């Protein structure tokens, strides 16, 4: 192993037997030997990376990409089929919290059990006991049985034990979502402190912002190989872009499978369209919206946008009977049904116009200030004082992603400023 490295993973391959028809009893093993078909699924394909002493890295990737397996190999819960892993120093993993907790025993007793499972000796636990109890904020309850704890208290105790295990290498799997916001930030500060003290850290997380806050480097594992590696702020946008696209594909596949029912309205040319028991489109049918599309800044048609990006949406319509006093409208709904924005040309006091021929309308957003999520777009054509001509909800879906982790529904334009109080001269 080279000098200065804490972890060295070289050419590691790991596959699992995935049983298509798993039988675990002897009868099944013997009798149905042929039926016990399984395939070797390669989870990791020749992965190599190194981690310097004191460095913090984040492993990212979609579910099943192999990042958790990598962590399990580092923990020595599993062993690679080929390749080698060498690690220098004491390894501790925050993978399972509250391991070995006994509900009937007191918090204090459980600290001993839990910490001993991490390989601490009694003396080491005694030295840390006060820190652990203080960190968990459970001083008043520490001698009560754990079964009387709320789930939040339980996790706080478990985390307090895990994070107070001193180690040279700390492996963390998706567990920073513990307790309330206060406790989370406390955990985070503790983690930074651990890092400052020179501990090497490997984190697996879905929360890219957590990784950005702690790690110097991100490794994106995709289908068992390292797809991208580098500074989190370089790797994460590429990753997010990829994830957005694959989510879009998924949504489209799903939509293709959804069932649509078209009900003609008795009088006139109007119709109603139902999808999955929900009325998604209605109107008198004098004009019809044919399709909707969205484009990015460079004019390329796409459906995934970054928060703040320029977006152009177009609606194409055909006119069957002239529409007098026409009004174009748009609605934006978040995936969970939140109405984010809605407007139309009447609200914005455009002069009335008629539609006599087919055409297209364009809706331009200079900077799309929606926060990450899936959004449904509604396009509408009305006439007169609000008679629906074609009211087309969910005509198109767009996906928004962001490199930042702001909270809420949309970004509000803002600036920050602060200054310190001026010093007063006593004399």
């Amino acid at each position, binding site marked *: 192993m080279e000098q200065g490295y804490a972890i060295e993973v070289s050419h590691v391959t790991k596959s*699992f*037997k995935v049983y298509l028809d798993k039988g*675990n*009893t*002897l*009868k099944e*093993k013997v009798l149905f030997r042929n039926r016990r078909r399984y395939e070797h699924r390669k989870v990791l394909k020749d992965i190599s990376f190194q981690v310097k002493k004191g460095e913090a890295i984040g492993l990212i990737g979609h579910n099943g990409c192999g990042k958790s397996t990598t962590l*399990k190999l580092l*923990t*020595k*819960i*599993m*062993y690679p089929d080929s390749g080698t892993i060498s690690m220098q120093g004491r*390894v501790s*993993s925050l*993978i*399972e919290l509250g*391991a*070995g907790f*006994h509900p*009937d*025993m007191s918090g204090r*007793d459980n600290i*001993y*059990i839990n910490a*001993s*499972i*991490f*390989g*601490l*000796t*009694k003396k080491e*636990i005694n030295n840390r006991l006060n820190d652990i109890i203080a960190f968990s904020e459970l001083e008043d309850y520490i001698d009560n049985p754990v079964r009387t704890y709320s789930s939040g208290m339980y996790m706080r105790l478990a985390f307090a034990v895990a994070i107070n295990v001193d180690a040279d290498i700390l492996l963390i799997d998706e567990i920073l979502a513990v307790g309330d916001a206060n406790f989370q930030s406390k955990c985070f500060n503790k983690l930074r402190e651990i890092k400052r003290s020179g501990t090497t850290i490997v984190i697996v997380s879905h929360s890219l912002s957590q990784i950005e806050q702690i790690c110097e480097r991100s490794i994106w594992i995709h289908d068992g190989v390292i797809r991208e590696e580098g500074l989190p702020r370089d790797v994460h946008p590429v990753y997010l872009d990829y994830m957005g696209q694959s989510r879009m594909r998924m949504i489209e596949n799903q939509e293709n499978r959804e069932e649509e029912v078209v009900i003609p309205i008795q009088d006139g040319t109007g119709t109603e369209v139902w999808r999955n028991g929900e009325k998604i489109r209605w109107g008198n049918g004098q004009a019809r919206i044919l399709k909707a599309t969205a484009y990015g800044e460079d004019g390329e048609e796409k459906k995934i946008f970054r928060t703040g990006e320029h977006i152009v949406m177009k609606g194409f319509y055909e006119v069957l009977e002239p529409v007098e006093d026409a009004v174009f409208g748009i609605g934006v709904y978040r995936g969970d049904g939140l109405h984010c924005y809605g407007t139309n040309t009447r609200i914005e006091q455009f002069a009335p116009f008629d539609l006599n021929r087919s055409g297209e309308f364009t809706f331009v957003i200079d900077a799309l200030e929606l926060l990450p999520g899936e959004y449904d777009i509604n396009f509408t054509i009305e006439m007169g004082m609000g008679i629906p001509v074609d009211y087309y909800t969910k005509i198109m879906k767009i996906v928004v992603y962001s490199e930042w982790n702001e909270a809420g529904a949309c970004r509000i334009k803002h600036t920050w400023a602060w200054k310190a109080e001026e010093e007063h001269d006593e004399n």
Partner: protein
Amino acid sequence: MQTIKELYAYRTMIASLVRRDLNGRYKGSILGFFWTFLNPLLQLGVYTLVFSIIMNSDIEDFYLFLFVALVPWIFFSTSVQAGAGCIRSQKDLVEKIYFPREVLPLAFVTSQFINMILSLLVVLAVLLISGKGWSLPALCCLPFIMMIEYMMALGIAMFVSAVTVYIRDLEYFLGIVMMAWQFLTPVMYSVDVVPERLIPIFMLNPMTPVIVAYRDILYYKKIPQAGTLLQAVLFGILVLMVGAFVFSKLKRHFAEEM
């Protein structure tokens, strides 16, 4: 060697698992830890009732004859039968945390062992009260034979617990195996009643010398024969080595097979 060093580093884990098992077992019951003593005492009561009053045996104080062998036998059979599931039942730990896997059978057998020691205290008390009495020189051999039995129980527990991870049936199958094994071991009878020609086969049973030695020490108040002890030691070492070897081969894939 590496494993032994590592197990030493994890000694606190073994200790706390044992303590959790012993303390946790009777938690919530009114009599609590007292059950550890009450249980063997009540069993003894039942045996006395059955064998002194209902079924009269030729053997003098048959309930004691039986009891001094039954206590070590129960330790052994529980270690094997319930011990088979000791890795499976800790699925969460095994899948999520690294620790030397040997810790689990070791802790399980040790906690059973401590239970046996507590039961033996009851046995010793009863021997004294019933007027049977102790023989101090013979009692000096007791820790020795206990250690040998511990090795045997540990070796077999390691073997069956590791195999059970791969073949779950073993755990259930062991129920009948242990019953048969009990009848093939001189727990409820004396070796004297075994037909002469079957003795060589009979002596292949590693538990025979162990039970014979217990009975010699506690019931007959005499030091076991050197041959019995030697046989027990050899069996003990052999069983432990085989168990540890099989375990070390199988443990690498525990996490995947669960």
